[in-house]
């Protein structure tokens, strides 16, 4: 397979574009296990990694894969794994260990219908898991929510860089639609930032320092509390500096729809039609789900008459919209779950219902 020249626009499947982006961002260690609809990530890595001196390893299970990521990250290299909803549940123990050991890594979740084995069609029903409890304990991970394949590519670079900067796991929360669809993309021409991990990683002390131990076990409560409090100070800085979102036609809006990922594309189609019919509706699209754009929603709440959260779930992110709005104006929800994708017509009908005579 030829090396893709940067800037050249190519048509690529989301899963493959994501994998190529990770390689271009310097990732040389991939550990995975097949599951629809993310299998092309692993398949692409299996093809490419051996040719560029990287490691592709199909583990015996998702649990093994995430622990291999832990090992690789502890040795100071960029490592990643990818899976889909049921497989991510298996990885949650390892994600908590990564967070507890202050290890950077990338985890990709190409969501499918759940719970249980669920189905294989697109879903956003892992929002709570990704943003509230990606593992046991007091912890956060960075969660990026791309809505186009280009954005997915760009976010892979951001995710690795922020993960290394703050020494914590990052997740790309995609869905089956983004994983399977093709769009034209170009790979960014940016220089990948290098991080010196010698001071903390278990990468050999070269006789220059005492040996490093990477661990998440702290038996003295006071020491563990201090570790967590330090981590939460970093979380606060991230919330301040790295929250990302897009505002679309929000300034004069009476109703603001909040949507992320593939769903935001459907919402955008609905909003464009609604605007043509003089409905004053806009969208706030979180690009990071943790940290969440709470302030953007708070600000909009000063001048809008209501919010509508649209998701491919029974209503999960709507909780964060309600927390941000804090009772100021009504917050409604519309969605489908189980792999059913909402249509622009349905979202448009919901917008019209809520705006009623406000046209």
């Amino acid at each position, binding site marked *: 397979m030829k090396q893709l020249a940067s800037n050249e626009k190519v048509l690529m499947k989301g899963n493959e574009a994501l994998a190529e982006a990770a390689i271009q961002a310097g990732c040389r260690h991939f550990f995975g296990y097949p599951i629809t609809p993310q299998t092309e990530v692993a398949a692409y890595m299996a093809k490419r990694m051996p040719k560029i001196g990287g490691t592709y390893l199909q583990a015996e299970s998702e649990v093994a894969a995430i622990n291999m990521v832990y090992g690789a990250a502890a040795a100071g290299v960029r490592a990643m794994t990818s899976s889909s909803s049921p497989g991510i549940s298996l990885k949650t123990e390892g994600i908590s260990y990564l967070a507890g050991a202050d290890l950077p890594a990338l985890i990709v979740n190409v969501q499918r219908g759940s719970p249980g084995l669920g189905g294989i*069609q697109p879903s956003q029903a892992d929002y709570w898991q990704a943003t509230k409890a990606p593992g046991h304990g007091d912890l956060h991970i960075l969660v990026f929510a791309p809505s186009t394949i280009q954005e997915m590519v760009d976010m892979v670079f951001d995710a690795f860089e922020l993960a290394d900067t703050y020494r914590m796991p990052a997740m790309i929360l995609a869905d089956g639609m983004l994983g*399977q*669809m*093709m769009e034209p993309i170009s790979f960014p021409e940016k220089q990948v930032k290098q991080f010196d991990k010698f001071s903390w990683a278990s990468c050999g002390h070269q006789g220059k320092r005492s040996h490093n131990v990477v661990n998440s076990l702290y038996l003295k409560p006071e020491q563990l509390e201090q570790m967590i409090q330090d981590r939460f100070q970093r979380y606060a800085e991230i919330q301040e500096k790295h929250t990302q979102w897009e505002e679309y036609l929000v300034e004069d809006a009476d109703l603001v729809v909040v949507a992320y990922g593939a769903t935001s*594309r459907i919402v955008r189609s609905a909003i464009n039609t609604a605007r043509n019919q003089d409905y004053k509706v806009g969208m706030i699209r979180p690009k990071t789900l943790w940290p969440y754009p709470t302030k953007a929603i708070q600000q909009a709440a000063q001048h809008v008459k209501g919010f509508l959260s649209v998701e491919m779930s029974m209503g999960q992110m709507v909780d964060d919209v309600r927390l941000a709005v804090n009772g100021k104006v009504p917050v409604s929800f519309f969605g489908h779950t189980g792999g059913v*994708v909402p249509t*622009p017509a349905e979202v448009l009908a919901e917008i019209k219902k809520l705006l009623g005579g406000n046209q």
Partner: protein
Amino acid sequence: MKNILLAGFGGQGVLFAGKIMATAGLFEDQYVSWLPSYGPEMRGGTANCSVCLSEEPIGSPLVLEPDVLVVMNLPSYDKFIDAVVPGGIAIIDSSLVNKRCERTDIKCFYVPATQLADEKGLKGLSNIILLGKTLRETQFAQSETVERAIEKCVPPRKQNLVQANLEAFRLGMSQQD
């Protein structure tokens, strides 16, 4: 803006024909998206794909109400023919769909693509014949661009098939109503 839905049996190449359309759109600097159905499809099962070509960024990539429908089997015809928007176009492989559409608000074109492919020594390229006919009736791109897209989409290890694909494409282009 064109929303195109291609549907047929797995193995007929509806995803591949869609990829050529999207690639041609990309070559002409259009916004494009390609989305396959990805259920437990297999050879013989049904498969379809949505292609959007637009001057503006594409919202939903899922085509539920196609402007252009390309159908390659009866189950897909029955499932999607009523979804075509009024004023839309349907390109139908009449070797495999033995029905005539009764709708008067859409234009239907019947091409015996599978039979043509067999007769002309282009077995397995009925999808590309229909692609040619689709271009003829919709002008979704320049024909030279589509030929370039065909050359690009045929994988390197199958380059010997480029000529046959181009032949099938031109055959489709030449099909009268």
